[in-house]
């Protein structure tokens, strides 16, 4: 598969953006300006960005709760993302949903189910719309290993496969559901094996290899777009941070964390770009500077943005429109 230089640089830039934005959040947390819990995906950039790289603009995405990379990958602006992080009126959820619910209907980001596992049927339903409307869109649902243990996983994948819906289910397997290791939660090694139960392809991929994730997702996306139905992909990766910032993560062996940090997806991708002579250290510095500047501008935008008024809490419950 020939991948354009532009696409490769896009993947690199977006991965860096996720990493640097999440590192900025780590800096901002002690200032007390942010509220809510932060589930950071540092170390998992290749999975989120590699998967999003396979989507077209019109396609739908349902991100996971560790999904800042996903919403960056689908094109939501850093200003809006940062405003959501600050809970400001200028964020995509206007302070209602917070960092978890960052979404943009116009970019196909359909929102997040904060009860984990709620995403499976919703993604199935979005794909059903596409099938009925023949709009050639596909839906990508990204979820963690823990979520795959919900009954909703079974109901939705079963129905999506029976109806041959254009949906790709991509598991970000970081091996822990908060403290619960995968080995204690399921008797199988590969979550992708569950695809057999639905008669659909199930593929395992190195979730720290952005190109591999991109290629395997694109294959599933193309299959879905051709009307051949859903796929299940399992990207094996690892979160460097605790489940949420502030948690005393005592359940993981330090050696395990260190070993995974040695497999940094960004360092690896940078090396390939340099080897391919698509990037040199000077260009790399320039990219980083530009991203840092964008992030600083986003922080400024968010800090200067107005808070929602208390009574704004009463808006947005019902749509007032009745279809004519």
């Amino acid at each position, binding site marked *: 598969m020939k991948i354009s230089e532009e696409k490769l640089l896009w993947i690199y830039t977006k991965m860096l953006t996720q990493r640097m934005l999440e590192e900025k959040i780590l800096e901002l947390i002690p200032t007390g300006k942010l509220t809510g819990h932060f589930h950071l995906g540092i170390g998992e950039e290749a999975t989120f960005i590699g998967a999003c790289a396979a989507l077209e603009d019109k396609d739908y995405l349902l991100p996971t709760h560790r999904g800042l990379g996903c919403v960056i990958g689908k094109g939501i602006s850093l200003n809006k993302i940062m405003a959501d992080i600050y809970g400001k009126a200028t964020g995509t959820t206007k302070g209602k949903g917070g960092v978890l619910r960052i979404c943009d209907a116009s970019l196909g980001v359909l929102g997040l189910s904060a009860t984990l596992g709620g995403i499976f049927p*919703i993604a199935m339903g979005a794909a*059903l719309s596409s099938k009925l409307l023949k709009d050639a869109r596909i839906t990508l649902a990204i979820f963690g290993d823990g979520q795959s243990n919900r009954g909703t996983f079974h109901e939705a994948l079963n129905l999506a496969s029976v109806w041959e819906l254009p949906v790709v289910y991509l598991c970000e397997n970081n091996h822990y559901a908060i403290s619960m290791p995968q080995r204690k939660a399921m008797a199988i090694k590969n979550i992708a094996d569950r695809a057999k139960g639905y008669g659909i392809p199930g593929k395992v991929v190195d979730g720290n290899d952005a190109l591999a994730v991109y290629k395997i997702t694109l294959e599933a996306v193309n299959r879905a777009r051709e009307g051949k139905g859903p796929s299940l992909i399992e990207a094996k990766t690892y979160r460097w941070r605790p489940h949420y910032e502030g948690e005393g993560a005592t359940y993981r062996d330090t050696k395990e964390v260190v070993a995974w940090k040695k497999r940094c997806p960004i360092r690896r991708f940078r090396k390939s770009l340099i080897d391919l002579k698509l990037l040199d250290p000077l260009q790399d510095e320039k990219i980083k500077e530009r991203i840092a500047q964008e992030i600083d501008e986003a922080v400024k935008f968010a800090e200067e943005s107005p808070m929602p008024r208390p009574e704004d809490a009463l808006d947005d419950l019902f749509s007032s429109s009745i279809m004519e």
Partner: protein
Amino acid sequence: MREITFSEAIREALREEMKRDETVFLMGEDIGRFGGVFGVTKGLVDEFGEERIRDTPISETALVGGAVGASITGTRPVVEIMFADFLAICMDEVHHKAGKWRYSHGGQFKLPLVIRTAMGHVFGAGPEHSECPEAFYLHSTGLKIVLPSTPYDAKGLLKTAIRDDNPILFFEHKLLYNMKGPVPEKEYLIPFGKADIKRNGKDVTIVTYSFMTHEILEASEILSKDGIEAEVIDLRTLSPMDRGTVVDSVKKTNRVVIVEEGNLTGGVGAEIAAWIMEEAFDFLDAPVRRVASKNVPIPFNPIMEGFVIPNTGDIIRAIKEVIQIDH
């Protein structure tokens, strides 16, 4: 005017709306060739095909969650949940997803979806097939709740529900399905939040909805012979709720009985009684009285079932108690 059954009225509403808008589609267990376990969707698959009349496996969470996903992406799903008791299976999808998706995401999405479901007792269906669970969902946010009592109301309200851009719970009482009533052939819609006074009276206001409306109308005729004229208000929708019609009636009669088929504690009547106290206390000549099912599951045995669920006798007794309290 011609008379058709409650089932036929619902089927007509579905058919007309599907003809009118090709983004409307149906999903549910056994709704296709089989026509639904209550026969409501009979024949629709012949007219609209299997793409738009979708039979599903036993997967309530996928059905309602799927309807949420479909509704935010340009189609208008109408889901059938076979028994209203089964809404508990997909409570996350109803309460959190359908009820909160728009709000949590800053009002970016519209959720034009309808969940039709059969509720209420039907001679020995037992504890998990007889429930009237609407009070659970009245406590939810972001849902509209519709409970018609006649074929006329069922058709007009369902057409409105399908055209509404919000999630709707549409409760159909099983004992109403075969009930006949006048339904015009000409198209009409009934707006939400407008109660219907099914009987005018000056002595006592009875607030109710769905099947109990008929038990009350029967009781009212018996009471009329004793010179007691009950005003029967059929709320038709619990969310939005037409408080104005109720308060106006209370101002006239000064006495209220609220009747529901769900069980008493934490019920719809508790909510209505509370705001009548807040908004019309000065007009009351007697305490508000609630009539509801006893606080047990609906038992299988018809003798016990009949004892648990309110009947015309219970309603007459409650009304007489309220009337006899002399201010």
